[in-house]
């Protein structure tokens, strides 16, 4: 017993002295110096001058509820390659100009990296993993507030509330990040001039959530498997002057939701196998959904009575022909379905989605011209539909063959006198 206590005390003093050392080292360093850190350090470290911290197998462990590391009111700071353990917030950056925080591995915390009133910050190659708790009880992976010119890339974030939360940021480039199993993959609020590229969002409530933004571009992102009761691939609320292009939006409950949008362009995206590919409410008539590919969605589009403009998209369920050879179908494509429109107004109708009765109704809708000319594409694109062959599964074929044979035998035997 005494031995254990002694070891414990020894370990305690050692770790205490180590952490005292790190803060001391930081305090004593010349501005602009580089400190190499190894081993585990417990405490709540504070940086208030230009400094480079490079970890070599290093861990920062926060004590109490305070962050493991705070960078406050300074410039030119680099934090590279640390494991961060904290109860609430991993790293907090306040009023800093020009910093790079890279290769951080944070887990089991509420908020990975929090940023306030800063400028020229690069957050990259970090991996952030929250807990298994419900997302309402968790914080954001990267929480970014009131800052300018941010560069956020190659981060891996999972199991948090919002992967990358962006509020009141001027100029942010978010690319090559992956966010999974969180509430929102990337969540924009009141942030203008954002560019979101090449990110992957999977199994969140919503992949890309953009709210109250003027000027925004998202391209080449992949958003898929958002199938929770309120799930969607991409959601725009109160968005002006935005472009969504070349994204792949697949296997979501709702592919893209546009609500209260002005002048948005949805171009060259692929909407694959969503339950509803596009839902539009209160979208102005300048906004345009053009040149997209809709394949395998149960419902292509639904809207309120204002509708949304569809133009020259490809629809796999279009059954017209292109007799004049201009690569566009000769008859309009109707995405309108009575059921889809009801579903927008009354969520309880959702029960009937793709039910036998609705399938029949939808077929009838496509035969009858819509009086209001809503959700109609006058120039549907025609593309060659290439069938994909997969490898031959001999075991399955054999099983099928044998079963068929035996059924036939049983039948013949049964019907014999």
């Amino acid at each position, binding site marked *: 017993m005494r031995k254990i206590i002694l070891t414990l005390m020894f370990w305690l003093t050692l770790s205490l002295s180590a952490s005292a050392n790190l803060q001391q080292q930081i305090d004593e360093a010349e501005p602009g110096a580089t400190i190499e850190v190894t081993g585990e350090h417990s405490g709540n470290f504070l940086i208030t001058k230009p400094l480079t911290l490079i970890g070599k197998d290093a861990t920062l462990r926060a004590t109490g509820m305070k962050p493991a590391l705070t960078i406050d009111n300074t410039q030119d700071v680099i934090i590279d390659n640390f494991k961060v353990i904290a109860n609430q917030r991993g790293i907090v950056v306040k009023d800093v100009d020009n910093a790079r925080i890279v290769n951080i591995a944070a887990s089991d915390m509420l908020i990975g990296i929090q940023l306030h009133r800063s400028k020229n910050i690069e957050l990259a190659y970090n991996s952030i993993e929250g807990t298994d708790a419900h997302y309402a009880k968790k914080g954001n992976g990267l929480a970014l507030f009131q800052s300018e010119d941010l560069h956020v890339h190659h981060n891996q974030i999972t199991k948090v509330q919002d992967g990358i939360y962006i509020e009141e940021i001027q100029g942010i480039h978010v690319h090559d990040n992956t966010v999974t199993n969180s509430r929102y993959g990337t969540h924009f609020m009141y942030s203008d001039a954002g560019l979101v590229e090449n990110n992957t969002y999977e199994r969140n409530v919503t992949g890309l959530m953009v709210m109250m933004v003027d000027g925004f571009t998202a391209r080449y992102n992949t958003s898929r*498997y958002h*199938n*929770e*009761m*309120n799930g969607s691939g991409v959601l725009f609320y109160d968005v002006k002057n935005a472009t969504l292009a070349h994204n792949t939006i*697949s*296997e979501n*409950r709702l592919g893209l939701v546009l609500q209260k949008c002005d002048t948005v362009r949805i171009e060259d995206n692929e909407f*694959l*196998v969503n*339950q509803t590919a596009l839902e539009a409410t209160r979208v102005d008539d300048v906004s345009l959904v053009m040149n997209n590919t809709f*394949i*395998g*969605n*149960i419902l292509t589009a639904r809207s309120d009575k204002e509708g949304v403009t569809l133009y020259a998209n490809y629809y*796999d369920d279009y059954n017209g022909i292109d007799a004049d050879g201009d690569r566009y179908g000769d008859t309009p494509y109707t995405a309108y379905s009575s*059921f889809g429109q*009801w579903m927008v107004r*009354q*969520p*309880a*109708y*959702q*029960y*009937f*989605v*793709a*039910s*036998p*009765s*609705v*399938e*029949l*109704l939808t077929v009838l809708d496509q035969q009858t011209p819509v009086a209001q000319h809503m959700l109609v594409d006058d120039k549907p694109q025609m593309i060659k*539909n290439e*069938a*994909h*062959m*997969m*490898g*031959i*599964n*001999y*075991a*399955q*074929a*054999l*099983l*099928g*063959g*044998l*079963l*068929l044979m035996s*059924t*036939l035998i*049983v*039948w013949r035997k*049964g*019907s014999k*006198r």
Partner: protein
Amino acid sequence: MMFIKLEWKQMLRSRWMQMVGVLFTFVFTAIVVIQQMALPETEGFSRQTASFLNLLLFLLPLFILTIGSMSVASDIESRWLSLLKTYPLTMRHYILGKFIATVFAFFLIVIAAFSVVLLLGGFLGGVTLPPVFIFITVASIFIFSALSVVVGVIAKTRLYALAVALIIWSLLLLLISYALMAIGTVVAGHVLQKITVVVIHLNPVEWLRFGYLLFAEQASVLGPSYFDLIAFYNSTLGNIVYFAVTIAWVIVPLALARLLITRKGKEA
């Protein structure tokens, strides 16, 4: 036992049944293969899953209800039943025999259809039959075979049986849903939601569809309005209730058929 064998033989020998077997296999295979070829593979609820399920819900009840009910009605019409009544055969055995023969005959048809799908799927790739799907198929054969016996007992002639079967089929598949949707345009959302929950339990087609989504873990498709219902049926108790209700959908019609047929016997 002898009676079941006899019934089963008759059923397999009937032209009607053979035609239905070929038709079902053909339509089922064609649609499944076309759908699966055209669409990329997915894990959630997709148009492919929906068409798979709808095909089953459209075709199986239609065929089972018509064939099963006509088989019983023709016994009555041709006085074969009156003859049977002079044998030491209780009406319970008669009903059960009819039911089991129908179930077996349709098992055979469905297995034939599935094996063709598997066979073709093996060559073309990408075609699979999820276990939940097979479970729902089995459950629907049981439920609709039981219902078809009742329809046959109620109807006195084959033509009448065919008409009643078709009416019931269209009611269950389409008309109840349309009525519900129409009601939904005038009542509040929460009322529509409650009526829908009741209808799920009262309409075997909806019940099977709900079961499929439930056990395939795709019930979130139905939307947040049904969160509590889904949460209940996902619990162990809910699973037990689901099976109990499913079994009730088989037993209650059979019991009803027996009651009606004995009453009919007394009148005659």
